[in-house]
């Protein structure tokens, strides 16, 4: 067991760069890690607040007793998604596989140590989601001590079954990825579609209940209860926990606990039994993967070659594609929806609001939409800032970037250009469709294009500059730089703050001055400032030497 403890300790120290934060003598690195930790806490707090609000909203529409199944369903989905993202790298084809397997340790201990770290991460995520949901709603459901204990147990055990399923899927994905030429792109696109669908579904679920009248509240309560029943049917553990917490059924709790423990044990046993074979299958190349040899494509100019390389990198790195693609895809989807629904969309929204909320004095919802929607597209564009980690993603192959006979302006500029294509193209298409579909006035229509374009430029330049200043080439998984790096967070924040400021300014102007043209002027002014800032940042970035 001492060996298992040592393996667990190594996994724990490796998690989130914990050991590096403790042991590093590099003050800058420690500050970066501390900043990241703070950011994680902030994100956790935001998630918890959001879940608390959701729980309170469910309680306010009389659906408090449906919360346990909803919480288990949400926790399971989150645990499955998080485990799926990490399981492949943690279990199959990981870099130190040979080193670990050469240790005088039974295979099951190696597997258990790795699964335990995944489990701990999933359990933490479940706690962040489920505790606020329970705290906000269970008192309203009149749950006793036994119910609270059942709820507590559910939080601890919820990750077990999703984790086991995620491991199975991760193995299949790793296996396919090692066999299929474009598996990474397919996995990334599939993940992107899934995440966008989840965001749309969550958006649909989290309509503000306070804006609804009594009948609507009852209807919503019924809808939530129906969803909870659906979740319980779809995901049996959700139903078991629901019965244990609300109805106090000990048998349901025992069933849930037994199924969770059995699944976890089975997962460890099966993966341990086939660990070597699974890893051999994942790491061995298929015999017929190659295509006919190519002896050089048509020559391209360096910028085009670099941009194509950047776009290939996005497509072939699922976590990169999923993280940066959500905003642009959502923006495009919003644009398509506006185009299809037409001006009647705004009337429908206006009708769904309480009397008086659809109009502020002489200002109409159409006027507000014309003023605010460009900034919504800008917001979506600001979340697709690929340039903020594209320098770091050069990783151990950065010597190519550093030694090719191209100036920094070309190398870094191509990363900015790739960002503009990746985020700007779908957003501008969506914005143009929205402007046409909603029949906005010509001046406002111009803002639909100018505003997202300006914010995309600003974010892309800021991201490239920050990443060139603070590159992290020593990553082991792309996840580290895409999800946990300071340049990504800072560039996202910069673009988002700019979008929200622009939205607030243009909407405030519309409300105060009462005309769409004034809002367009404000939007144009903010866009001009963003473009000027982008140019200044780019000029500085392009003068920086790339290299260690």
């Amino acid at each position, binding site marked *: 067991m001492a060996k298992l403890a040592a393996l667990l300790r190594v996994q724990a120290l490796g998690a989130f760069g914990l050991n590096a934060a403790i042991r590093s003598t590099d003050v800058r690195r420690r500050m970066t890690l501390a900043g990241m930790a703070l950011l994680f806490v902030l994100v956790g707090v935001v998630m918890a607040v959001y879940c608390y609000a959701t729980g309170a909203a469910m309680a306010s529409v009389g659906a408090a007793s449906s919360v346990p199944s909803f919480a288990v369903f949400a926790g399971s989905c989150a645990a499955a998604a998080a485990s799926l993202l990490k399981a492949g790298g943690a279990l199959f084809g990981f870099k130190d596989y040979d080193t670990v397997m050469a240790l005088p340790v039974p295979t099951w201990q190696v597997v258990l140590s790795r699964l335990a770290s995944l489990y701990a991460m999933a359990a933490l995520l479940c706690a962040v989601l489920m505790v606020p949901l329970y705290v906000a709603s269970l008192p309203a459901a009149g749950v006793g001590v036994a119910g609270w204990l059942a709820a507590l147990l559910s939080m601890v055990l919820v990750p077990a079954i999703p984790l086991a399923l995620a491991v199975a899927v991760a193995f299949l994905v790793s296996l396919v990825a090692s066999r299929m030429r474009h598996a990474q792109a397919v996995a990334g696109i599939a993940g992107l579609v899934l995440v966008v669908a989840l965001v749309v579904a969550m958006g649909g679920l989290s309509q503000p209940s306070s804006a609804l009248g009594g009948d609507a509240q009852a209807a919503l309560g019924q809808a939530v209860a129906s969803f909870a029943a659906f979740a319980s049917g779809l995901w049996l553990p959700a139903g078991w926990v629901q019965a244990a917490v609300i109805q106090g059924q000990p048998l349901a709790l025992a069933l849930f606990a037994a199924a969770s423990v059995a699944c976890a044990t089975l997962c460890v046993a099966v993966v341990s039994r086939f660990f070597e074979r699974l890893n051999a299958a994942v790491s061995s190349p298929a015999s017929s993967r190659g295509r006919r040899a190519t002896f050089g494509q048509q020559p391209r100019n360096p910028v085009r*070659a670099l941009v194509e390389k950047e776009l290939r990198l996005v497509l072939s790195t699922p976590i990169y594609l999923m993280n940066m693609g959500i905003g642009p895809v959502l923006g495009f989807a919003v644009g398509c929806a506006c185009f299809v629904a037409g001006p009647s969309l705004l009337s429908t929204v206006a009708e769904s609001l309480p009397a008086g909320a659809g109009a502020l004095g002489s200002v109409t919802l159409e006027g507000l939409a014309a003023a605010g929607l460009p900034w919504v597209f800008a917001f979506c564009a600001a979340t697709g800032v690929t340039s903020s980690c594209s320098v770091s993603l050069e990783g151990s192959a950065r010597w190519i970037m*550093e030694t090719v006979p191209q100036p920094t302006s070309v190398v870094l500029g191509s990363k900015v250009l790739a960002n503009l294509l990746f985020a700007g193209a779908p957003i501008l298409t969506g914005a143009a469709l929205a402007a046409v579909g909603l029949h906005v006035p010509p001046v406002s229509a111009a803002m639909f294009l100018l505003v997202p374009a300006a914010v995309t430029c600003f974010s892309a330049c800021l991201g490239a500059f920050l990443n060139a200043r603070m590159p992290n080439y020593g990553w082991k998984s792309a996840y580290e730089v895409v999800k946990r790096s300071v340049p990504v967070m800072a560039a996202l924040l910069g673009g988002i703050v700019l979008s929200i400021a622009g939205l607030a300014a243009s909407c405030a102007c519309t409300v105060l001055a009462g005309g769409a043209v004034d809002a367009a002027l404000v939007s144009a002014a903010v866009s001009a400032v963003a473009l000027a800032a982008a140019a200044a940042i780019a000029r500085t970035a392009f003068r920086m030497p790339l290299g260690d």
Partner: protein
Amino acid sequence: MKSAGARVPMLEVRGFSKSYGRKKVIEDLSLEVMPGRIFGFVGPNGAGKSTLIRSIVGAQRFDGGQVLIDGMSVTEHPVRCKAVVAYVPDNPDVYDYLTGGQYLSFMADMFGVGKAVRERRIRSYSDRLGLTGRLGELVSAYSHGMRQKLVLIGALMHDPKLLVLDEPFVGLDPQAAFDLKQIMAELARSGSAIFFSSHVLEVVEKLCDEVAIIQNGAIVRAGATEAVCGDESLESVFLSLAREGGEGRG
């Protein structure tokens, strides 16, 4: 190989120094490589070989001194210098989301190599190094040796005036190692200069016109290979210098 007549060195390093934080890795190092010469750079681990090489190829800034490529300063004219240099790093990490063929095309695009020339060179070198049938595969499926060969082909694509290699023989099979030595000799005959580091002292001794031995960031012996070795093998010279260095430190 031994008849270099040009007066301007293809590579000239003058008073080079580099520190990492407070630690001085190299101090006041100077050397030069004339066109058509093969220069071997040997030294123990951590002596500063890769540090100097990375600075020569423009992958790393340095603190003091000058590095001139064909008479041009790498700090003042980095792009022009890089255009005539080719680099083969010690760890052949390349973009593993590209196929071998795509990587070579990318490198040819970066160096502005025309279609006909790139096709001819890719075919010629990949045939020679036994990589032709694998160029359609993703680099992620390549072994270390195959990546090494791929990087080498990419480096030779633009017919460099100066080829800089860091431990080029690591991971190569005997045939590929033989081919690489042949290619290096051919390049030198055609007037290019070659600067490489290696721990394979027998190869350095046989292949190089000149050799420099570096210890603790300073060159302790340099010159024509015959002069450096005298009656001994390069290995003996290297080991005795290492012992002296160790005693000096102790």
